[in-house]
Every structure is written in structure tokens, then in C-alpha cells.
């Protein structure tokens, strides 16, 4: 009688494993997968972007001149002379907008160079570098190889993406800003 009972228990256990085993194993696997998968970061997080910009500004500050950094902080762009120093032209570096070339003597706008630095390594965080990083990437690329960067960019006449009136106002602001700094230093 005991033997029959024991055999029945074993048979029932085997049938249970055969019948429900795969389902249980699948449920267990799904639960582990859910636990292992980290929640995707939100596509836009203002706090995260602000912290990223703060870090990017520290790097910008460490690389460009004190005047260029102050210019970025106070005016929102960096004005950079052409490679040959007193070449008669310069560039306005805006974050995530084309590089605007201008005549340093007449302030005439010469052209726009559309260039971007898309980072596709972490799609969940987007492709856009923080503003200060984008400006620094343009600054380093122009300083290291102006011709290479300009030849890679799409060139357009002024006004295609950057409002020419805004760029002219920025050049006036730049002149006034530099004048104030000279006065303060005197």
C-alpha cells in the first residue's frame, strides 16, 4: 500500500514537471529579464541637460581663452579670427547653428557653414552634444584644421539658417562688449 502511494506521488510529480515545467521556466526567465532591464532614460530631462551643460562649460573654460569663455557666457557665442591671424575675416560660433563667417573690418556677413557633430552612440540620450560642447567642438576643429572643417561643411549665403539681422546685432554687441572690457581693464 505504501509502495503504491509512493509510486503515485512520484508519477504525479513527474507529470507536473512535464506539464507545467516549461511554463514555469518561461515565467521565471521573463521575471529575470524584467529585473535585469534598466528603465530607459527619458528622452528629454531638463535637469540632466542643465548638469551636462555645466560640465561642458567647465571643459570649455579649460580650453579656450578667458576672453572667449566670458564671451560665450555673456553673449552666447564665440567670435574667432580666421586661421591666418589678421586675415580680415572671422567666425561666429553659435551652439547648434551654422558657423557664420564675417568680414572683421566691415562686419559684412560672408557665408554660413552648416556643420554638426551628431553622436549616435547612445540613442536614448539623443545625438545633440550640450551647447558648450558643440561650440568647443567647432572651436577645436577650426583651430586644428580650418580648411578641413570648412571643406566638409555645407556652405550657404548668409541668412539661410541664422537670421542675418540677428548676426549683425551680435557683431554690434560684440564690438560694444569688447569696448567695455577695454575700459574696465584701463
Amino acid at each position, binding site marked *: 500500500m505504501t509502495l503504491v502511494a509512493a509510486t503515485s506521488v512520484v508519477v504525479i510529480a513527474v507529470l507536473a514537471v512535464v506539464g507545467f515545467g516549461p511554463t514555469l521556466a518561461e515565467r521565471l526567465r521573463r521575471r529575470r529579464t524584467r529585473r535585469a532591464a534598466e528603465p530607459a*532614460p527619458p528622452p528629454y*530631462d531638463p535637469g*540632466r*541637460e542643465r*548638469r*551636462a*551643460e*555645466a*560640465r*561642458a562649460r*567647465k*571643459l570649455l573654460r*579649460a*580650453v*579656450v*581663452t578667458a576672453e*572667449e569663455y566670458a564671451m560665450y557666457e555673456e553673449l552666447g557665442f564665440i567670435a574667432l579670427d580666421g586661421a591666418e591671424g589678421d586675415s580680415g575675416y572671422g567666425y561666429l560660433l553659435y551652439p547648434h547653428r*551654422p558657423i557664420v563667417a564675417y568680414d572683421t573690418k566691415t562686419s559684412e556677413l560672408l557665408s554660413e557653414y*552648416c*556643420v*554638426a*557633430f*551628431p*553622436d*549616435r*552612440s*547612445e540613442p536614448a*540620450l*539623443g*545625438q*545633440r*552634444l*550640450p551647447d*558648450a*560642447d558643440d561650440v*568647443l*567642438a567647432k*572651436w*577645436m*576643429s577650426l*583651430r*586644428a*584644421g580650418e580648411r578641413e*572643417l570648412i571643406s*566638409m*561643411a*555645407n556652405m550657404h549665403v548668409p541668412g539661410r539658417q541664422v537670421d542675418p539681422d540677428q548676426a549683425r546685432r551680435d557683431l554690434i554687441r560684440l564690438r560694444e562688449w569688447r569696448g567695455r572690457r577695454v575700459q574696465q581693464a584701463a
Partner: protein
Amino acid sequence: MKLVRMKPGHGDVVLAEGDPGVAEDEERLIEEFRRQLDLGMWAAVPTAEGMRHEATMVRDFSEVPKDAERVVFFPPAAGG
């Protein structure tokens, strides 16, 4: 020397840090340098001499001056 990389949502991230004069550190720096270039990143070495600040693009770790403070990696430019 620091190897830093610009990243969306992060700002700059320190990838590796060490003294290239120490063999063990140099090996680690070279390994990370190559990894970033394999990922398609551009590498620039910022320099400053007095008031003049410059940058040089480098394609091999041997081109990085031993006394460079940092190498900055960033995504390659594309026509916008």
C-alpha cells in the same frame, strides 16, 4: 593626462587618467585612445602658449605631447 569625451546628456566624461611616463598608465591610455578612434571619434589636444590657445587633431597616441593635460574626443563633423 586625462582622456575625456563629449557626450550628449553627460557633458564631458573622463575615460582614463594617468601619467604617460608610467608604463602601466601609458598602456591604459593607449588602449582607451585606440578604442575611441575605433568608435569613430575625433581626438584633439588643446594647448596654450601665453594668450594664444590652440588645438591639434591627433590620429595616433604617439602624436600626443607627453605633457598634454588632456585629449578631448568628440563625434566627427558632418555637413549640417
